[in-house]
């Protein structure tokens, strides 16, 4: 796992965590909606922030696949490799 990318992503996710979830709860396996309690609207915010932070564009299919933090890292890696 690319630590730098992971930290960058974690910093983005942290902004949208509800108060009852702490940043230490985030792991690669965390499910955005089921475990981190992030609602669908904030999931969109995370995607838009990811696009800006990594200078990539995500599609609707990417969002559907993005269930966990690990999924997000995979998508980021795929997009970056195509740049």
């Amino acid at each position, binding site marked *: 796992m690319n630590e730098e990318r992971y930290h960058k992503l974690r910093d983005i996710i942290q902004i949208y965590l509800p108060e009852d979830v702490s940043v230490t709860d985030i792991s690669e396996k965390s499910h955005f909606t089921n475990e981190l309690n992030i609602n*669908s609207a*904030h999931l969109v*915010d995370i*995607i838009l922030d990811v696009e800006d932070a990594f200078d990539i564009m995500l599609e609707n299919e990417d969002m559907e696949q993005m269930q966990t933090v690990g999924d997000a890292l995979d998508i980021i890696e795929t997009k970056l490799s195509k740049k």
Partner: protein
Amino acid sequence: MKNQEILDLLPYTAPFLFVEELLEVTEDGVVGAFTFSPNLDFYQGHFRDFPVTPGVILTECCAQIGLVCLGIFLMEVYIRENKGARIAVGLSSSEMDFYHPVLPNEKVTVTSEKIYFRFNKLKCRVKMHNASGKLVCKGIISGMLKLQDIE
């Protein structure tokens, strides 16, 4: 899409429909209006002996005109492709500032400006003015819009 078609596709009905007419609809925003009938139920309790339109209702009016009507227009293609589908709306956040009260019988105009519509999330900047052009409230509203099959 004609303005009347958008109104027909709204998932609301009285006593919770707060859109009367659409004056302008483009990819970037909408302008619409609503007149608050003095017979609306909430005036009996908000406030006792002094009817004023509640802020939540003004927010709802801004959301129905500014977010949902615009959303229906932006989703036109999908709505046409999926005949019989109904639009499902979930308000996801609203941050409003209020400047002027709206009394029974007043007509308000809502102007909304699209900030973005991506991954089913529509985020808009909304403003409401009264008949004399005074700013009633303004803010940022976002919601998730999806097509829902009804069989």
